[in-house]
């Protein structure tokens, strides 16, 4: 299939121009596959069989084939980060990763699998200071923050500026910053 020039947003653009966003978009890429693919995905510690075209974005496989809807669609072009998941502990924007580029050995973690009972320090901090407003972007924000803390347990404001690039239209940014610091302090206490 040939995409129209103004066509399929993210995927097409990424193939043409490479990643526009700072996180989650430098995932390995093979040749495009429109062919239907039977794939095994390791999501939240469970290996699942999925069936979709090889060029289906991981986001839509997670939402529509696997049925985990905590990972959100916001832009489809790796800009907003609402679709953020962890792949092998790295935060990635799943809207711009194709199913055919994911290996069965890749460990994918979605918001649903981040912790039992929302017990991750990031989730606890988010609850403590009521970060969410509408909540739609917060799965992605939380996944981005958790990945940041894994890599940088005591982030500075500059670290947070660099890592937390997800869009929130309600404007919860100030509380996100506070909550990331709070989660870091909480995690340090053990």
């Amino acid at each position: 299939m040939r995409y129209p020039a103004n066509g399929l947003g993210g995927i097409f653009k990424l193939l043409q121009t490479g990643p526009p966003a700072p996180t989650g978009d430098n995932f390995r890429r093979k040749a495009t596959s429109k062919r239907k693919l039977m794939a095994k995905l390791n999501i939240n510690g469970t290996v699942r069989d999925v069936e979709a075209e090889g060029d289906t974005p991981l986001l839509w496989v997670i939402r529509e084939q696997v049925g985990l809807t905590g990972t959100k669609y916001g832009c489809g072009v790796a800009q907003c980060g609402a679709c953020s998941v962890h792949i092998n502990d790295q935060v990635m924007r799943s809207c711009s990763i194709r199913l055919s580029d994911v290996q069965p050995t890749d460990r994918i973690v979605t918001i649903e699998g981040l912790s039992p009972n929302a017990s991750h320090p990031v989730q606890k901090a988010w609850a403590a200071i009521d970060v969410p407003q509408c909540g739609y972007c917060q799965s992605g924000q939380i996944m981005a923050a958790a990945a940041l803390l894994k890599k940088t347990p005591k982030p500075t404001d500059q670290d947070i500026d660099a890592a937390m690039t997800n869009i929130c239209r309600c404007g919860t940014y100030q509380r996100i910053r506070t909550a990331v610091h709070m989660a870091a302090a909480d995690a340090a206490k053990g």
Partner: protein
Amino acid sequence: MKKSTNQIIRDNSSKLSRRTFVVGSAAAGGLALGFHVPFGATSALAQTAGGTEVNAWVVVQGDDTCIIRVARSEMGQGTITGLVQLVAEELECDWHKVKAEQVTPGQNLARKRVWGEMSTGGSRGIRTSQDYVRRGGAAARQLLLRAAADEWEVPVAELTVENGIITHGPSKRSTSYGKVAAAAARLTPPDPKTITLKDPKSWKIAGKPMQRVDTADKLDGSKVFAIDVKLPGILCAAIKDCPVFGGKVKSYDEARLAGMPGVKKVVKVKDTAVAVVADTWWRARSALEALPIVWDEGAGATASDATIADLLKEGLTATANNGERKNGDALKAIEGAAKKVEAVYSTPFLAHATMEPMNATVLLGPDKAEAWVPSQNVEASLAALSEASGVPLAKCDIHRVDLGGGFGRRGGTQDFVHQAVAIAKEFPGTPIKLIWSREEDQAHDFYRPISQCKLSAGLDDKGNLVGLHVRVSGQSINATLNPNGIVNGKDMRQLQGLWAEPGDAQLGYDVPNLLIDYVMRNSHVPVGPWRGVNTNQNAVYMECFIDEVAKAAGKDPLEFRRALMGPHPKHLAVLNAVAEKGDWGKPLPAGVHRGIAQFMGYGSYSAAVAEVSVSDQGKVKVHRMVMGINCGHAVNPDQIAAQVEGSVAYGLTATLYGECKVKDGRMVDLNFDSYQIMRLAEMPKVETVIVPSYDFWGGVGEPTICVVAPSVLNAIYAATGKPVRQLPLKNVRLV
């Protein structure tokens, strides 16, 4: 952690919650869908809620849990928490045993609108329902107390109640709400008019920074937005409306989709759009992208930024206007003034860009219609569902789902519901979920109206403002959405914030000779309310120009304003509050400058002090924003602060980046790679100053956004000496 135990979780477990029911059914692979609350049966709720309905607002369960009903929509603004606080305050129940439950518009209709208006816009959610919801809570308390008094055969006046425990002091007996609820429900309710509400000074739950009741499921992915709804057999639709507003579908080549996986049907939606229905949304979207569509673009295709700007510019000097306020003779006073100041400002179209794009799921059964809609006005959604499907209102209902952002996009404009119904008509008995792509969402918004403004001022030889003329030329929201709001060609809505009338959006300045008028100039681009609506543009015009005039008068911007605000003590009090908290007049680090602004909208008074620096390369950095609001009653100070913080982010995005460019009759920037949104790194430190005067009820979600841009622009003016008269800043060379 500030809080660990007793998290109040919004009730998603009762059978009344259709959302939970449906999701549960889908997970279990069940098919038992549809209405479980019989229409017209007034007692249905009491039976199905898993507790006893004491009155429309309060259901008490056996374990003393109080379920408090909420009619308004939640899109992040905290209205549910605030309304529950108000009811709980009067109810005197245990806050740790409170749950919230949303009612549907079908239920409201069936019970003669016992829950009142459901529309959630204009920052009205709390201020226009606070009275009756508090009376609802108080009436329930009276019924519960009377039931206990009857049981013990003692005068009700001898009873006290705290945290849902009723005590009879003389006999040392006590009982709980859960134990007397059934008896209470059988009593005749008091006349709400006879109820004396609590003095806010004695509030214990309302007025306090309670944590939100709806946070838990936003932390683990379990919250179900409309876009997440799962139903057995559901099909998904992607849609493309003619990119040129007003254009139509000419033809499309459906044969090109032959053999594409999962595709069920191509549907022409009205005359203007084409939708593809498939088993998954991604397949529907992929097929739609592959579908060649020929458009009849119509007359709008010749419009562009330049033609629209010309249209507005002509309105700046037009003779006839579409509404005005005046006192004295402004034009004459300016003509004869010792010093004149004149400027032309402009602001662009803006998109709402809710994080959750427009979507709706519709299921048309043989004799009923239901929909899952992220809606700021579920009654408007209900009306749209009925109108588009032909199913009578009484056999329609809208399932309650919270919105992934609203900002004014999803209130009166139910275009996406009409589309989803049109598609679902082709699939009777099958649920259809229509999701707009981000590109479609950007291409077919009801945009913040574009306008230009010409301002002229006259100063006397002492630098006093003797005359002011403000001419706004731009698009009318009423012309797009509410033509009946334009009476005899007059449309004062576009002058919001500049009005003479007190109480809602009054201009806070007293000028001896004043003329403010509006000239309507409409392009083919549809416009609508956008968080803060017309206060945004009008505050930029008025508040930035006031700084220009103050400078011409050789006066400090704060002092210049104060001299005009004598008859407006409430406006002035908030201005003074931010000036004090914002250290107005005190030294700043090198390169940092302050700007100030005040304005009124949605019944509340707002002001801001911004601290801004401009780099040698012209890059703006906003360091600190001190934001003040008097919303009358402060129901939840922490949530007010959250709204103020959010308004800074929304307002700064507009100030720095926001602009919807028009070329060949269509929107140009269709995703966040080109329609830039401010990120966390650019978020300034926000300090919120709440100064409630407790003598009125004002809004919260919108009022403060309008002072963000002018305070920042005024700080830039202080930094560079050059006024910024057009937005966004990304287009303005500052150095």
